């Protein structure tokens, strides 16, 4: 569904992403892992059209979308969410979701009813009339998901939806994501919470210092020495191995 080929981007002299390649098959949940500053969010911004890549291409449903404006990409059915979630203050929860729904439903009545449905599906039925600014972090994360879903997008790029949540909230979101996937959506998600990635993603890519260093099933990746070193530092893999044997 999504084919990213040899994406590169540098800011000034700093190479943020070099030669990143990844594939997301329809109906899958793919993780994008990596330590802080590895270039994950930069990758997302390029895929979603917020910044133009220096090199490389992005294809979505077989169509070249490299360098297309974000709103055009969204209209094609791919949407990104943000790590720092900011609901539109001054609007209710339902109106917030409707902003997404307006993409394909120009009439307010229709958009609002789509918003209500989406909200209910994500367990927000009780807070639809509340001001969005009154939501907790967990509520905001859900709202971000709901807004994205309401656009009718089929591929969702989630930027750390679990960050800042407590374990019980994480398992709720994990359940919701699984449910949405079963309804026919595809996910590419940046995630730090390994437990969530392990239980959700079939495949994951690991980005370190702007380069893809590994990909495969998450359970194998955590045993990959290069991945361990990327997270824990040079030599960590051997030390872990030794500690394990001792």
């Amino acid at each position: 569904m999504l084919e990213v080929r040899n994406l590169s981007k540098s800011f000034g002299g700093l190479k943020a992403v070099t030669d990143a390649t990844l594939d997301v098959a329809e109906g899958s949940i793919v993780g994008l892992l990596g330590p802080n500053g590895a270039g994950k969010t930069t990758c997302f911004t390029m895929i979603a059209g917020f910044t133009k890549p220096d090199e490389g291409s992005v294809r979505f449903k077989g169509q070249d979308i490299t360098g297309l404006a974000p709103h055009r990409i969204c209209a094609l059915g791919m949407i990104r969410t943000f790590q720092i979630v900011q609901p539109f203050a001054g609007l209710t929860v339902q109106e917030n979701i409707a902003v997404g729904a307006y993409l394909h439903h120009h009439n307010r009545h229709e958009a609002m009813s789509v918003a209500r449905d989406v909200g209910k599906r994500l367990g927000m039925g009780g807070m639809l009339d509340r001001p969005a600014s009154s939501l907790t972090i967990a509520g905001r994360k859900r709202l971000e998901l709901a807004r994205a879903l309401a656009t009718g997008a089929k591929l969702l790029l989630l930027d750390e939806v679990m960050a800042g949540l407590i374990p019980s909230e994480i398992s709720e979101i994990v359940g919701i994501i699984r449910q949405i996937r079963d309804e026919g959506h595809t996910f590419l998600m940046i995630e730090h919470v390994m437990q969530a990635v392990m239980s959700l993603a079939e495949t994951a890519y690991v980005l370190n210092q702007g380069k893809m260093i590994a990909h495969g099933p998450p359970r194998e990746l955590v045993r990959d020495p290069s991945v361990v070193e990327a997270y824990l530092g040079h030599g960590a893999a051997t030390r872990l191995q030794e500690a394990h044997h001792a």
Partner: protein
Amino acid sequence: MKSQSIGQIALAAAAVAYLIGVYFASSPVWMGFTINALVIAVIAMSWNITGGFGGLSSFGHAALFGTGAYASAVLQVNYGVSAWIGFAAGILAGAAMGAFIGALAFRYGLRGSYFALVTLAFAEVLRICASSFAFTGGGSGLQLKLAPGLANLQFADRTVVYTALLVVVAAVMALTALIKYSRFGAYLIAVRENEDAARALGIDTYRIKVQAMAISGAFGGLAGVLYLQLWLFIDSTVVYGSGISIEALIGPIIGGAGTVWGPLLGTLGLHLLGEGAKHLLPNAPGLNFVLYAVVLICALRFLPQGLVGLAGKIGASKKKKESGDA
């Protein structure tokens, strides 16, 4: 679905009661003064579209007001076009000027203070142009021929003028409400709150902002044309002047930016205050602006949502909504 608080309903009712009361006022002064306030309320409503809903604070809305007034006046005076066509042309010219300024400013991503300054500069450029060219009457301005009658959009009877203005104001408010509860309005608010999130949700933010400027321009041009038909005379220092730009933004901010009633309430309130001050200190031109400024500072500090927001806290209904939703 929209649950307004008792306070907000009371505030709106008070404004309506005042506007009706003017018909029965003992002194014609009230009507004359309210007529002026209503014209200003329309430019305030124009500012409210971009500044209130879109979060794009313009400091040069006189550019739109003046363009509407001059477009109509030039057509009527120089080309003998009918007042009705001039009226429509003024609105269109305002919209075109709004779209032009918006297209330029947003093309280069100007926002915040930069946008405020560039709009101000546009108003100044237009002011200097209008005071320099012959076809705009240069420094002496343009004067319409006095010829009362419906065909010329001039009315000898103040009551007729006042009623017509009330209809126009009601229409602009109705349009504002339509915008607020439409797809476009939701998009505009989304742009104000978080432009990146808006883009991610499929909103062409550039287009939305330029459209907002065009609509604001149409309202602004309308206000300018109303001014022209009322006074039958315009000159560049007034219609392109900073006073208009200031009044355009101060009413909505005090009344409640991004609300339907805010611009009207703010403008009426300020003008009543200014008028009161004029009676206490008769020979003090500009004193009203001093008062406006003091009220503005206090409002910024103590009434972040303006009068409508304040009223929203009084007797708010149980289904508590974000304040400022009137």
